[in-house]
Structure formats: C-alpha cells, structure tokens
C-alpha cells in the first residue's frame, strides 16, 4: 500500500544521534501518530484499543494477584481467599482481574463482529484476520487456565471437562492426557502447571498483538465503506483523530467496567466456585463463564464426544476460512443486504447458544424428534437440546454452505467510489445557511 503519512525528521541533535542508531522513536511516530487511517471509520473500530487496554489491565492486576497466589490443590483456593480478605485492596484487584476477563471478551466479540460485518477478513487482510483468530484461541486458553487455578468447585469441573479433550485423541490419548496433567487425573501438578501457563500466555498474546498491529499497518484499516485507501484525502492521521476516538470508547467501557467491579463484583461468576474443589462431587449444574457459553452448548449439543470437541474448537477455527468461504468482491455488509441478513441470524444463533449454556440440555435431540414425527416414537420433555442442535446447525451453516452461496448469488448495492466520498455523504446534514462546499484541501 502507498504510504501517505508524514515523515518524522528529528531536529534535536541528541535524538537525531539516537535515531541514526536505533530508529525506535521514528517507528513509534510513524506507527501511532502519523499513521493514516480511513477518515470514515466509526466507533466499531475502537475496540482494538479497548482490547489493548484490557490486556494491560489483566497483566498488571494478574501480576499483583501472583504475589499472593500459591498454586497447588492444597493451597490455591485458600490463597485466593487470603487475597480477598487479607491483602490490602486484594478483593478489588481480584474483582478487576475476574471481571476484566469478561470485559476483555466483550471487546473481543465486538472487534470480531465488526470484522465480520464490514468484511475486514478479506484480501488483503487475510493474515491480519488469521493472526486475530490465533490471538482469540490464546485468549480463550488463558481465560480457561485462569478460571481453573482458582480451584473452586466450578474450576475443578472446568478443568476436568476441558482436559478430557486429550483423552479423546485416538491411540495416544491416555499418554497425552497423563503428560498434560502431570498425573493420572487433574491434580496438584495440573494446577501448578496451569498457573505457570496462565502467567506465560498473556505475554505471548502481547507478542501476537505486535504482529497483529504490524500486519494492520502493512494493509491499513478496513472501513465501513469497505473500499481501499487510494489518496491521502481518504485518510486522517492516527493522532489526534483516532486516538481520541479510541479514548472515548475506552472511557465508556472502563466506566461500565468500574461499575461492575465496584458494585456487582460477583454478578458474572458462579457462587459454587466459592466452595473449594472436591473431585468426588460435581456441581449440580455445570456452566462455564458467559463468554464460553456458545462453545459449551455446541459441545453438549452433539452426542458423540469426539465430534462435539471438534465442533467446539471448530466453531472458532472455522473463522480462519472466512476469507475464502466468502467469494463476494464487496467487503462491507452495508452494501450486501442478503449477507447482512444471514450475518445477523448467525449472531442471533450465537446468542441463543450462549443462553442455552445456562440451561440443562435434558430433552430429545433432532433425531428423536424426526423419529417422533415419522413414527410417533416417544420424545423426552424439554426442548433445550433440540434448540441447541438447531442453533449449532445454523451457526455452522452460516459459514458453509450459506456464505459461499450468498456471496456468489447476491447482487450487492453500488459501493462508494472512494472513502472520501463516503465520508462526505455521511456528514451531518446542515440546513441554513448553506455552508461552503466541503473542499478537500491537500493538507487536511
């Protein structure tokens, strides 16, 4: 892509001396000050910054929690209670960390949905998109490990359920499981290594963040019009336009976050996780944190364990193929009414799956209902399992076959000729007196 950004020329002799040897200030300037972004991007583009802020909050609060946390089945739960009760502001810091995970995921979901709606996964941003999917996997892993090491009842259930994935691997499953657990079942070595990994993964996420931003700066931001930058007129510099816009959303999110941290610190968690883990008793109802709800329901909706596990991971993994499943040359859903309709139904199916995670999946599945309709065979009461299977089917059907078919058959609406034209078209209507025509100066 053509580079329209201003070049930084240091005038101070000392800075120039440094810059000649390590051009780090110039890199920062070109990346976060002069970098040109499409002038029409809206508030959906601010969640990347929110994600960065949440990652930093998680790392800082996590570091302080690590100073009080003692891993191991005998000590983990007590040390968490110790942090809550004895460490100065320990309860606050833990509330920030636990609820921070939720807000991290909220921002990630908005960020991903933005990309899906406006076609940010399409050429030339495929690698940027795939790096994002990898980051989301790492984020999920980190959240799972962090939840497990609290070592309450729900932590133990989560660790048991998720690690049984290893056992489902053909042939080497049992050995793989023992090496992953450090024993014959989830136990003391498991909790300790989960803690070590929980500390490590966020920094790997930082590394991927750098790659993600690097890839972004090569291909530039997508935008609501979904047309590429062609002239400097299409763009605005990152500072102050984008940074201040980002900070508005960061402020809004932090406001809600602070409200939850202060006034509803336990609202998003499960009370049963305040009972120390006991591997001889399962909680009456097992449900993950809300952000894993859709994937948990997909796992439960499918009767075959191995298929269920593949579907659970595939629900995220399939995003990798979106750039090639979607054949439409038009990026933005704004000009793709059919795609937009199916995308919104997909979002709805994901919400239904999330809601079903809070329900028991008792009841009959699709096949039992088909048999019931055909031959009148009895079906169990309750429709949650049927719903879960239908929502799962729709979740995947969106990617295949709906996405390829829609993208080939749909007739998109005309897209704007340029970002600048789109931006001007979306300016607020001014009545009287008529303003001077908006002339794009070469200097912004």
């Amino acid at each position: 892509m053509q580079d329209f950004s201003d070049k930084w020329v240091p005038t101070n002799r000392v800075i120039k001396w440094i810059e000649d040897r390590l051009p780090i200030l110039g890199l920062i300037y070109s990346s976060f000050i002069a970098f040109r972004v499409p002038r029409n991007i809206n508030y959906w583009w601010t969640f990347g910054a929110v994600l960065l802020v949440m990652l930093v909050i998680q790392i800082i609060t996590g570091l302080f929690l690590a100073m009080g946390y003692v891993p191991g089945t005998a000590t983990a739960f007590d040390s968490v209670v110790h942090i809550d009760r004895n460490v100065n502001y320990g309860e606050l810091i833990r509330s920030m960390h636990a609820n921070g995970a939720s807000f991290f995921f909220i921002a990630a979901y908005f960020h991903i949905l933005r990309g899906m709606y406006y076609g940010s996964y399409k050429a030339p941003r495929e690698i940027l998109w795939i790096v994002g999917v990898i980051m989301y996997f790492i984020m999920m892993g980190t959240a799972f490990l962090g939840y497990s090491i609290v070592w309450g009842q729900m932590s133990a259930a989560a660790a048991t359920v998720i690690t049984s994935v290893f056992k489902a691997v053909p042939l080497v499953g049992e050995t793989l499981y023992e090496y992953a657990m450090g024993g014959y079942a989830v136990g003391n070595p498991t909790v300790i290594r989960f803690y070590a990994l929980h500390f490590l993964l966020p920094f790997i996420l930082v590394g991927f963040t750098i790659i993600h931003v690097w890839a972004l700066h090569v291909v530039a931001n997508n935008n609501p019009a979904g047309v590429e930058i062609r002239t400097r007129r299409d763009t605005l510099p990152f500072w102050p336009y984008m940074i201040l816009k980002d900070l508005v959303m960061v402020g809004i999110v932090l406001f809600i976050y602070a409200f939850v941290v202060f006034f509803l610190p336990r609202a998003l968690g499960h009370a049963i996780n305040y009972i120390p883990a006991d591997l001889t008793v399962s909680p009456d109802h097992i449900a993950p944190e809300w952000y894993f709800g859709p994937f948990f329901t997909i796992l439960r909706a499918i009767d075959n364990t191995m298929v269920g596990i593949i579907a659970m991971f595939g629900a995220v993994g399939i995003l990798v193929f979106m750039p090639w499943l979607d054949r439409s040359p038009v990026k933005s859903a704004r000009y793709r009414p059919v795609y937009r309709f199916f995308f919104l139904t997909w979002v709805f199916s994901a919400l239904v799956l999330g809601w079903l995670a809070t329900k028991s999946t008792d009841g009959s599945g699709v096949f039992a209902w088909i048999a019931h309709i055909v031959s009148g065979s009895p079906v169990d009461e309750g429709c949650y399992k049927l719903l879960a299977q239908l929502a799962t089917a729709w979740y995947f059907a969106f990617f295949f076959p709906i996405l390829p078919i829609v993208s080939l058959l749909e007739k998109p609406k005309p897209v704007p000729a340029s970002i600048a034209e789109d931006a001007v078209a979306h300016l607020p209507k001014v009545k009287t007196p008529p303003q001077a025509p908006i002339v794009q100066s070469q200097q912004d």
Partner: protein
Amino acid sequence: MTDNPHDDNPRRRDFLYIATGVVGAAGVCAGAWPFISALGPDAETIANGAPVDVNLEPIAEGQIAKVLWRGRLVFIRHRTAEEIQKAKDLPVSAQLDPQEDSLRVKEGHEEWLVVFGNCTHLGCVLLGHEGQHGGWSCPCHGSEFDTSGRVTRGPAPSNLPVPDYVFLDGGTSIRIGVSSPDQTV
C-alpha cells in the same frame, strides 16, 4: 564457479551437510527429552498411584462408597439383590455399549460393583441411585448408567470402566490397581 575448492567433490560436501544436520537434530531431540519427560507423572505421583486396599465391611447394602485411586474417583457399590436382578434383566436394546453384567463383576461377588466414577462423556462426577434404571446419572449432560455401570442414555459413549482389582481376605476387602492378589507394583 571454481571459487570453492570443494566443488570438485560434491558428494563429500553433501555428506558433511547431512551428517551435521543429523547431529544437530539428534542434539535438539536430546535437549527436548528432559523437558517433555518432566511433563509426565513425577516419582511422587507414581508412588501415590500405588494400589489401594479398601475394607468393604463398613459399606452397607445399597450404599455407594467413593474411593480415590491415582486421583481418579472409584465407586464401590454394594448392590442389593434387586439391583443385581435389574442389571441382569436389562435388555440389550436399552444399552448403548452392550456388555454382560457378569463381565463387569467378579464371579461369586455379584453384590460388589467397582467402577470409575466419572462420566465417560466429559468426566463429570456421577450421581448415584438416579436415572431411569436407578444406577447413576450425570449432572452435566444427562447421561444415565444402570446398576452395572452400563450406559443407557447418551451423550456418554461407553460404559463406566472397571478398574483392575482383586478381592482379599476372603472377600472382606479389595485391592484396587492390581489384577492378581500376588501382584506387586
């Protein structure tokens, strides 16, 4: 083209390249070995995984005792005559993983059922005396097992596994983790 004096003997070069590569790869494997091995069960975990003896006398008829062996939950169920009969009478059509009840208990000790206590679906701890056949039910996804630990309702794909165990002292106790009484681990 003749800058390199060894160009006239390419096979010697190839051999050195490959040999160096093999030594390097062997070194990487040797270096990785301790770290992979360190992930496996440690000596303490293995020692704690030794067979356990369980006295059966306190377990009343109808009762299910929970024992941990190698950190895994084992149910020891003292079955009533009615429960044994129900297990024997369960039709194959009701079983998802058909198996004879007699293959799941020791001959002459039909009243004792010893099975792992985690659901074969995703490992949740089962609840005893529940489900259609009065065996176990899973609180997570609704799987059910009969009084022989055989799955009668999904999503669990298979019966509860029976651990290796033997009866000791004329049947008043069992040792879990061995397949014959004189086996030492």
